[in-house]
Each structure stands twice: as C-alpha cells, then as structure tokens.
C-alpha cells in the first residue's frame, strides 16, 4: 500500500460530496455535502504533509477546519432564518431574497 491510496480515497469522497450538492434538495443536507468535500480536501492535505515530510499541510488542514467551523455557524444561521420566513428548508423554495 502506498500513500496514494489516501489521495484516491480523498478524491472519491470529494466526488461524493459534489454529487450530493447537485442531487439533494434539502439545504441542510447540501450543507453536509459541502462539509464532506472540505473533509476530503483535509485528508489530501494531511497526506501531502506526510509525503513531503513538512507540517505545513497539517497546519493548512487545521485552518481549513477553523474556517469550516465558522462557515457552518453562519450557514446554519442563514438556513434557520430562511426557514423562519419561508417555512421550508428546500433550496428550490428560496428563490427570493426578501419575503
């Protein structure tokens, strides 16, 4: 086994996430698919850090985690406020910025 397997796993996970964003209609599930893509990229960053023998990749993965956490908080708040006005969490329903 070579570290390439990790990169292949990362590629597959990223693809699954991308397909999920395109296929699913529930805004929260779409959001979870985005999280899956971020995680896949993190896995490849960690693998690259190991391949190169440098810790920079791990630091980048760490920053990605921080940004993802902040993004989740704001995104879920937006979904909540959309749900409060439109009584729906489907991405098809949110086609207006107001009302």
């Amino acid at each position, binding site marked *: *086994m070579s570290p390439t397997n990790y990169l292949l796993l990362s590629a597959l996970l990223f693809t699954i996430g*991308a397909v999920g964003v*395109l296929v699913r209609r529930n805004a929260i*599930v779409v959001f979870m698919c985005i*999280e899956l893509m971020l995680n896949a990229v993190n896995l490849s960053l960690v693998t690259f850090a190991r391949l190169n023998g440098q*810790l920079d990749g791990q630091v980048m993965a760490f920053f990605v985690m921080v940004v993802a956490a902040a993004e989740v908080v*704001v995104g879920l*708040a937006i979904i909540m406020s959309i749900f409060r006005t439109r009584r729906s969490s489907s991405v098809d329903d949110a086609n207006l910025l107001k009302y």
Partner: protein
Amino acid sequence: MTDVISTGEAVTFWILGPIALLGGLGMVFARNAVHSALFLAMTMLSLGGLYMAQQAPFLGFVQIIVYTGAVMMLFLFVLMLVGRDSSDSVVEVLRGQRVAALVFGIGFAVLLVGAVGNAFTNIPSVGLAAGNAGAGGNVTGIGRLIFTKYLFAFELTSALLITAALGAMVLAYAQSRGAQSKIGQRATVQARLRGEHDRISPLPGPGVFATGNSVAVPAILPDGSVAPESISAIIDATPIEESEKPAADAHALTGGPYPEDEK
C-alpha cells in the same frame, strides 16, 4: 529518511477507508436528513482515525472533537429545530438534473482517480517520523509553525471567528417584526379605542344571582333586560339532557348492607 507504511496502517486504512466511503454514499442517498447527518458523523470519525494513522494525531483529535462533536451536533440541532420530517422533495425542477449530476459525478471520479493515480504512483514518501520536520512531537511542531510562519493567518482567524459568532447571533435572533409579531396590551387597547374591534369593552360575563352561578345564567343589563352576549353561543346550541336520577334507597342513608347481600 523515508517512511514505510506498516501493516497495521494498511489494515487501518482498509477498514476505515471503506467505512468513510460507505458513510459518504449513505449521506447522499439517505432519505431522512437525520440519517444523513449520522452517516456523515461516521465518515468524519473514520477520517479522524485515518489522520491519526497518518502521523497527524493532533488533527485526528481535532477532527473528532470539532467535527463529530461540535459541527455535527450543531447540524442535528438545526435539523431538530427545522423539523425532522422536512425530507427532500422528489419534484425535479430542472428536468434530467439528477441524472446529469450522477453522470458528472462518475466522470469526475474517473478523471480525478486517474489523474491522482497516475501522478502519484512512485513518489517517495518522506514521512514525519523522527529526524524530519515532525521531530519533537506533532503538537509542538504544529504550534511552532502556527505561531511563527502562519502567525498572521492565525490572527486573521480570530477576526473570522468573532465575525462568525456575531453574524450567527444577528441572523438567528428571532426578532418580532412583521405579521408574526405578537400584539402587546397597549397596542390592543389603542386598536380597541380606534374602533378596530367589534366593541370597546370585553364581553360581559354571565350573571351571578342568589339562585345560581351557572354560566348559563345571563347577565342583566341596567334596564333589567337580558344581555345576550353574556352567554356563550355554545350553551344555547347544546341540547339539554336530563340526567337519570337514582331511585331513592333507604339503605343508603343507614350505610347498612343491602338485603340481598345477607343471603
């Protein structure tokens, strides 16, 4: 100094990798959003294990604590707030979009796997073991990097976190405005005086006389007439049913046993 992948790591990969893939697929194809969230938590847990196997124990624990612990629970929390049964609509807004997305996904996967598999076949892995950059411990090395080379990015992170927390508070705060806001007492009184209600005062209560305090007794107006609004409309509409009166029984007064019980 190259690093060799041990058998233990290979076993870990071949156990956790398929679990992560299954979790991802389950997340996309589960009908229920809560199941999706749990599948994603499974994927993230196994990814945390993979990080630890790849000489990144700090990131592995951060992954488990932050992602499966905090982020996924936040997702579940919002799912419960929004309503668990808000499942996907099966209506296709764009015709053929799902099929196109699946085709795109397969093509993308083939492309990516082919490219990665070709580009990274025989590259030597340096590894983070002793003697390389990871010397002195993973956490120490990451800390040194964060507070020297990536210090500015780290400081920007604090601004990002504060902004995110503020934004979440502003967005999620339930302001009472528009049609959904509750009308207060003062506003109700003003609306009454403005004539927006049928009458200014509340409806008169039912009358209370010495002979009865039933809600069916109407109130009497000052001129002696009956106030029809004082009785609920339901009472007039309800048919009267006479309850059966129990037959008089002298034994009930004495508390003694019935005659047939003595036999």
